[in-house]
């Protein structure tokens, strides 16, 4: 480790870092703007200036940029010297020339990196008396506000948006003091990761529009460590609340999962918490079909009564916590507990779990995905189903650039140099999908194939690597695998075989067990030699994997329950946080609910299932409750209540535990707290034993005190209730978690799972996170949040595999062979709308697309229809708008999975299609409108 001297003090620093990182890691405050721990250095802002001396005799020294200067043994620097300080102060003054003095009305105020740096450099008096430049702002869509006057031209936005996230519609325009960061024309920012601009921009140019319109300063927000419920990636978040409303979601750093970035579904989708569909009171359906609001206690008694009588079955939910699901399973018994997946998904998620657990390949966390030097994606459109993984893959293709850089001994933080060096050279990424995906622009090759051919391609690659079932592969090569693709299969095989860290990705979205198996076969064929092989199988929801572990492979599915109900074997059905109409077709769910004499639903938002219930209990949402979720990499993570449940909502586990106690079920007598349920579940289900390690329990104290949800400057606790009473009530005690609903306590160096907000003296912005890290950009001092349940690298007993029940059904539907007059339905999920809850977020509402069908041009022409026409699917399964997509595999009909009107469509089903005669074309559509196929423009 090199030793350097800063202002006369010797420090040991890490080799290969730059001086700025090293200073921050040492706890020295060196101001900066353009450097970002995830994006490296370009030396654009000149803020991190220090003086470097040639040697001990050199007394003059010269100004260098800390972020561009590698640390080397014996180097001598001065941070505090007058020359460096004056330079840095002059830089801030020059940045302030055109910066408006509008902090009081700026949404960044109070958490602004520019404010922090201005104070840090000691710049106080402006000398400039001229006019300031002003700019016109652009409308950038419903999510992000634009206020260009505040720009300090650090270039972080375009570096993030274009270089890091692959966006094409934001650029630096013009030059010198006219420079402008915006779009070619006003319009919605197209990147799925645009929201990170809010945190990347060090000033108030890009801010969260929902926050701007419903504003609270950071210091007045109450926050808690939380986990995104948008998909199965499980990004760590810090939602902020005031007045019982969720105000915004910020990234919570987790070195192994999301790092510094979220996707827009996660950041803006959590707004469903404020939806006017949120349920507030328990309701009892009366004879006339209307609901009568019940008092909390009466509701509980009724629930207990109904659950105590007759035969009870329960349907859990992959979007509810492990604990709530566990209690429901206790309530109804394992034999009567359906996990709440659709039938196919139940098979596939269990299969994904089994394949990962049995695989010798590493099940990578998201950060490790970035290290892959060759990637094969089979079928899954990760940008739309597990978005944060797509952002990680955009970094993985840069490993080629880092290799080239290593040859020239360039450090990885030399961002501009490395991008220049590599130009368009990327590590191999192969995508086989039913049609175009948003990652195609960085792919080596994209193959658009029907699901059976995707599976066959995987098998052929596995066989080429000397693994898998070579007979099946040979058969398929002759059948399902088009001859033209065989050369591609060979190319993929070669690329993977030549890689050091190959990664295979597939997922449950395409509905094909064969694809999942093929992916596992490729991975296992690669698991030889010195390679570090990775296998990532995506599942759909925040707790899909946890639910599959909890329920086990033998749990009844929805069809089984419906059959039992129809046979009169179920009197009372308890549904936990699950809109069943998204899980099975309408007729089947109608039959199930109608056959049970009592339907009790616990959920947070009004939906078709709550509307069909006899008794509805309002369940607290993720921001009002605690729970454990198991992410797609098998990481158990805890979310904590940000604020107390509003109205009569209670955490689902609170309702269920109270109900069990009311029923005098002795097994729950020892359970008093949330943690007790976690422990009971861990003891009961061996595979979930690790969940207790997801976060410290409620007895954890940080140097003797709790962790505050409110920052030290939280203001107006009396004023915010003054319309009710000017007397400030005692702050409610949190009896379930190590966090407190107050400003008292200590938010420092605690375990990463308990970080509610970031702040450090002098660092009000989110940049203060480095004060919580072991080194700038490194893991949190208190440890990375979450506990891995799947032992990465297949340390499980590999021989002990058991076929998952019902597997054959899902397998068969994947069988190839076009049937004349029938199309195979293939899901085409969307980042906005395919997920149930985020679609209810007011901010995302206008970005949610109505349901659609996608066909290739030839298939559309054969039906005599074009984009904008209506298509009738099957026998009145759905009527949807057609989008012709040049890239769609022939014989496949893509559908907007999860979007309005697609509830009856199931992946891989064969359906007839015909023109919907009564369809009204939407105005403004012209014949040349097309889906975003490779031939069309994105401009």
């Amino acid at each position, binding site marked *: 480790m090199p030793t350097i001297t800063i202002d006369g003090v010797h420090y040991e620093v890490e080799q290969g870092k730059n001086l700025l990182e090293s200073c921050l890691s040492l706890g020295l405050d060196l101001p900066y703007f353009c450097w970002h721990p995830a994006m490296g250095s370009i030396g654009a802002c000149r803020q991190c200036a220090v003086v470097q001396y040639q040697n001990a005799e050199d007394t003059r020294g010269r100004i260098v940029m800390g972020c561009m200067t590698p640390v080397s043994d014996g180097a001598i620097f001065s941070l505090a010297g007058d020359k460096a300080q004056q330079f840095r102060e002059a830089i801030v003054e020059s940045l302030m020339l055109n910066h408006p003095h509008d902090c009081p009305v700026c949404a960044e105020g109070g958490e602004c990196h520019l404010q922090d740096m201005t104070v840090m450099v000691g710049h106080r008096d402006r000398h400039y008396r001229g006019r300031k430049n002003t700019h016109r702002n652009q409308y950038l869509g419903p999510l992000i506000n634009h206020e260009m006057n505040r720009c300090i031209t650090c270039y972080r936005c375009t570096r993030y948006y274009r270089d890091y996230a692959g966006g*094409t519609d934001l*650029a630096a325009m013009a030059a010198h003091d006219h420079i402008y960061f915006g779009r*070619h*024309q006003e319009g919605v920012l197209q990147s799925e990761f645009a929201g990170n601009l809010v945190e990347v921009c060090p000033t108030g140019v890009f801010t969260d529009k929902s926050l701007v319109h419903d504003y609270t300063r950071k210091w007045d927000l109450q926050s808690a460590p939380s986990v995104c419920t948008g998909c199965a990636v499980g990004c760590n978040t810090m939602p902020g609340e005031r007045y019982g409303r969720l105000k915004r979601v910020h990234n919570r750093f987790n070195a192994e999962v999301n790092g510094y970035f979220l996707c827009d579904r996660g950041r803006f989708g959590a707004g469903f918490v404020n939806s006017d569909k949120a349920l507030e009171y328990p309701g009892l359906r009366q004879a006339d079909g209307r609901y009568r609001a019940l008092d909390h206690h009466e509701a509980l008694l009724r629930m207990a009564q109904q659950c105590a009588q007759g035969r009870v079955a329960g349907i859990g939910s992959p979007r509810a916590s492990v604990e709530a699901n566990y209690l429901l399973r206790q309530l109804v018994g394992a034999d009567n507990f359906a996990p709440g997946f659709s039938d196919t998904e139940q098979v596939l998620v269990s299969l994904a779990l089994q394949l990962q657990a049995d695989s010798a390949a590493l099940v990578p966390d998201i950060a490790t995905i970035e290290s892959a030097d060759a990637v094969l994606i089979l079928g899954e459109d990760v940008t739309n189903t597990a978005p944060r993984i797509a952002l990680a893959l955009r970094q993985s293709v840069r490993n080629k650039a880092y290799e080239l850089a290593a040859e020239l001994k360039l450090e990885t933080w030399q961002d501009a140099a490395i991008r220049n060096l590599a130009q368009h050279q990327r590590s191999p990424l192969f995508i086989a999908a039913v049609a175009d995906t948003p990652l195609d*622009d960085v792919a080596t090759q994209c193959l658009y194939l029907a699901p059976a051919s995707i599976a066959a391609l995987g098998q052929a690659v596995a066989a080429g690597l000397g693994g898998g079932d070579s007979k099946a592969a040979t058969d398929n090569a002759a059948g399902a695998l088009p001859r033209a693709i065989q050369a591609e299969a060979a190319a993929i095989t070669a690329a993977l075989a030549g890689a050091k860290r190959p990664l295979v990705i597939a997922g449950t979205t395409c509905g094909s067990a064969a694809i999942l198996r093929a992916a596992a076969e490729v991975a296992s064929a690669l698991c030889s030699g010195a390679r570090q092989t990775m296998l990532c199988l995506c599942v759909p929801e925040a707790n899909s994997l946890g639910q599959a572990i909890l329920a086990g492979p033998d749990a009844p599915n929805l069809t089984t329950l419906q059959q039992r109900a129809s046979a009169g074997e179920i009197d009372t059905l308890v549904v936990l946080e699950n809109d069943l109409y998204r899980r099975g077709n309408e007729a089947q769910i109608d039959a199930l609910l109608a056959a049970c004499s009592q339907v009790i639903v616990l959920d947070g938002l009004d939906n078709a299932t709550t509307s069909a219930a006899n008794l509805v209990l309002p369940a607290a949402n993720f921001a009002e409750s605690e729970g454990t979720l198991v992410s797609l990499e098998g990481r158990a993570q805890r979310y904590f209540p940000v604020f107390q449940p509003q109205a009569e909502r209670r955490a689902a586990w609170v309702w269920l535990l109270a109900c069990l106690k009311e029923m005098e079920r002795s097994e729950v007598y020892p359970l008093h707290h949330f943690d007790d349920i976690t422990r009971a579940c861990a003891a009961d289900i061996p595979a979930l034993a690790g969940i207790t390690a997801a976060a410290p329990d409620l007895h954890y104290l940080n140097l003797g005190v709790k962790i505050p949800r409110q920052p030290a400057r939280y203001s107006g606790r009396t004023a915010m209730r003054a319309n009710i009473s000017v007397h400030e009530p005692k702050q409610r005690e949190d009896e379930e978690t190590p966090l407190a609903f107050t400003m008292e306590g200590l938010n420092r160096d605690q375990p990463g799972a308990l970080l509610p907000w970031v702040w450090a003296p002098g660092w009000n912005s989110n940049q203060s996170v480095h004060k919580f890290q072991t080194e700038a950009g490194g893991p949190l001092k208190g440890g990375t949040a979450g506990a891995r349940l799947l032992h990465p690298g297949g340390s499980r007993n590999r021989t002990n595999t058991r076929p998952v029940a019902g597997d054959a059904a899902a397998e068969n539907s994947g069988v190839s062979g076009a049937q004349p007059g029938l199309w195979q339905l293939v899901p085409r999920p969307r980042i906005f709308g395919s997920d149930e809850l985020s679609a209810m977020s007011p901010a995302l509402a206008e970005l949610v697309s109505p349901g659609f069908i996608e066909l290739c041009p030839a298939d559309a022409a054969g039906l005599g229809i074009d984009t904008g026409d209506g298509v009738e699917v099957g026998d009145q399964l759905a009527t949807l708008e057609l989008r012709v997509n040049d890239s769609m595999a022939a014989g496949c009909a893509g559908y907007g999975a999860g979007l309005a009107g697609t509830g009856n469509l199931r992946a891989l089903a064969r359906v007839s299609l015909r023109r919907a005669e009564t369809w009204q074309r939407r105005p403004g559509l012209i014949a040349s409108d097309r889906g*975003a196929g490779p031939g069309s423009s994105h*401009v």
Partner: protein
Amino acid sequence: MSDRNSSATIPLLDDTETTLSAAEIAGIDAEIAHAPYRSAVAIDALKIVQAHRGWVSDESLRAIARHLHMSAAELDGIATFYNLIFRRPVGEKVILLCNSISCWIKGCEGLQQQITQQLGIGLGETTGDNRYTLLPVTCLGACDKAPVLMVGEDLHEDVDAQTLRQLFDNSGGGA
């Protein structure tokens, strides 16, 4: 990247969008033939289209971007960086008046005032008859002949009041 906004409206190819002329495409393609990838000829393509159309409108810019397989934002970043790519209409001839150091010492400010008087336009403005647009420029590389200006393709050296009268007096300009 898929179109995020494809829900409410599908504003992809608009019927009113311009396309490049055959001559423009031929010119650009000739440049592409020598380039490692299409977007490498962005500046040349902008110049070619500007030569044909006088300036580069938003529609022209998008047409070029499509032809070069790059995003409009990226091309616009390039187009707006260079002040001789005109993103607004200009007159038939552009007057480039140097205001850099030598020309400033030799009195370019007076010249600018005189032009404004004669033609009735300030910097960045176009005469009512659309004949001239006046723009400042930083050094025309003829500092030894300062002050200098260009009118259209022609460089005028050692400019004085007399030169300007000759150049613009009978032009009938003025707003």
